[in-house]
């Protein structure tokens, strides 16, 4: 069983100033080697790429669907392609990046397996973060109320959410293994902090991580 990092002493204590709600940004930044080539899929307004450029001196590129996000990225001086993770990853050549990041997006794509395969084709490594549907509160709410859970990581009602493919930490680890990828690192996030109580293994993280960040490499 994969042993997880209980907490990450090297992770910045402070959250990125430009997006305090995204603890996963700090965790992701900590997984990226300085000076690397990074592609951020679903890069939003470019906050993470900006953080990576400033803190890790990466050569960043982005893919983003929304007009507001693309315009914000261009105005930051970032190179961003307006497009869709399901449709446009084919435009990126094999092995063209050191890391391909998919933060809080895999649950929103139409074909997660195909997208994950594209990530690992384009980059030597992939960093994927997502909300954990296996968190104890989700299970508790589902079990006691019999309704889709309403948690900080899953704030929208079932009919309003963009999420199409919610999964648990174990589900994702299983898919990665099935596709032949190695989990180099996995970081649970709970209550706004990297590392979750008791989350030493995938099994435990599945109970206690509100979100998770995986660093995958080709086996």
């Amino acid at each position: 069983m994969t042993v997880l990092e209980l907490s990450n002493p090297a992770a910045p204590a402070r959250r990125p100033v430009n997006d305090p709600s995204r603890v996963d940004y700090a965790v992701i930044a900590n997984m990226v080697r300085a000076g690397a080539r990074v592609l951020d899929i679903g890069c939003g307004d470019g906050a993470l790429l900006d953080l990576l450029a400033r803190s890790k001196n990466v050569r960043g590129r982005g893919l983003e669907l929304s007009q507001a996000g693309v315009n914000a990225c261009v105005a930051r001086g970032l190179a961003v392609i307006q497009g869709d993770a399901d449709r446009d990853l084919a435009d990126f050549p094999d092995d063209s990046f050191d890391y391909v990041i998919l933060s809080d997006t895999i649950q929103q794509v139409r074909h997660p397996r195909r997208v994950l395969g594209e990530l690992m084709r384009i980059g030597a490594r992939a960093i994927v973060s997502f909300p954990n549907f296996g968190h104890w509160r989700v299970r508790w709410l589902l079990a006691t109320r019999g309704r889709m859970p309403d948690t900080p990581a899953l704030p929208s009602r079932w009919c309003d959410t963009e999420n199409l493919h919610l999964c648990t930490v174990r589900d994702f680890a299983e898919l990665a293994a099935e596709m032949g990828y190695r989990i180099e690192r996995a970081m649970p996030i709970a209550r706004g902090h990297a590392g979750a109580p008791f989350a030493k293994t995938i099994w435990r993280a599945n109970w206690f991580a509100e979100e998770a960040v995986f660093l995958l490499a080709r086996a």
Partner: protein
Amino acid sequence: MIPASAPAKWTATGGLRTLVFAANAPLQLSSGAHIAPLTIAFETYGALNTDKSNAILVCHALTGDQFVASPNPITGRPAWWPRIVGPGLPIDTNRFYVICANILGGCMGATGPASPAPDGAAYGLRFPAVTVADMVRAQAQLIEALGISSLFCVIGGSIGGMQALQWAAAYPKRVFACAAIATAARHSAQNIAFYEVGRQAIMADPDWRGGDYVKHGVRPAKGLAVARMAAHITYMSEAALKHKFDRELQARDEVSFGFDADFQVESYLRHQGASFVDRFDANSYLYITRAVDYFDLAADYGGALAQAFKDSPTRFCVFAFSSDWHYPPAENRAIARALVAAGAEASYVEIETDKGHDAFLLEEPAFESALTGFIDAAAAARGLTLNAGARA
């Protein structure tokens, strides 16, 4: 490149500024032919800074001219890009030195088929076929003569975008940033077909006289008007046509059961055609559309567009408009894909609009804000401070 000693003369008459290269400094063309003497007609706005690092070259479209930000003194028509180029606008003339030149083969002062050949008579069909690469080569001569070794930005829409891409491919070290708008790296079969309709309309006009209409003191106005009408349809989306005209009748309550302009859309197209012939030369239309038909940037690089931009140091931004069916998003996306494959620093922006191909000339706030962002970020990367010329 022209030798520094090439005999060139600056002139400014009748509101047209030109640079004239003498007969012993010919422009070599892609076809193997050459043009001499060569006249480049251009306009500039703003001031060149001391290290000559703030120059922006604007490349105009098929029927445009060099008067990007001021009224054309010959035709009296207003500036053609008034929302983009000017003081305080996305291409801020308080900050940048903006250059726009009439394209080779054009009819607003540039050497073209209506210009006198060395024998004194108008070239007519004796004018050699030109290409987009030739247009860019002529512009490069102008830029060099202005003492600018590296342009801050080359920007253009439609076939202006083709020129911008050609610039970046041919002179990568002389283009810091490149904005290609609503364009394509190659002219599609559908577009060649539409242009061919236009050319046939011109050549079918009895007043075309085998291209020698100048000698006969006539003009193939009817043919040129039809060419313009056919092309103009491709610049507008179906939604825009419906929104603007639908099936509304023109100054009447019922159809005439004849061939008058019953419908507003007919009246509009006839007006577009009629006003065009007053300002444009029919042979120029033939030559320029042919140059665009021939444009296939990848062909010069072994068929792989990415090769055209290999190791390019230029920052690119490609803009497309969702309802543009003249140069649709897919064509622009193909450029972006090649740039990504080449490892270039490239952005691709696809604006949702119903305004069609002409959207880049119209009010389109999302486009204007994206373009401003691209220019400002590139200026910051180039070290051009806001106060290089004091923004209004």
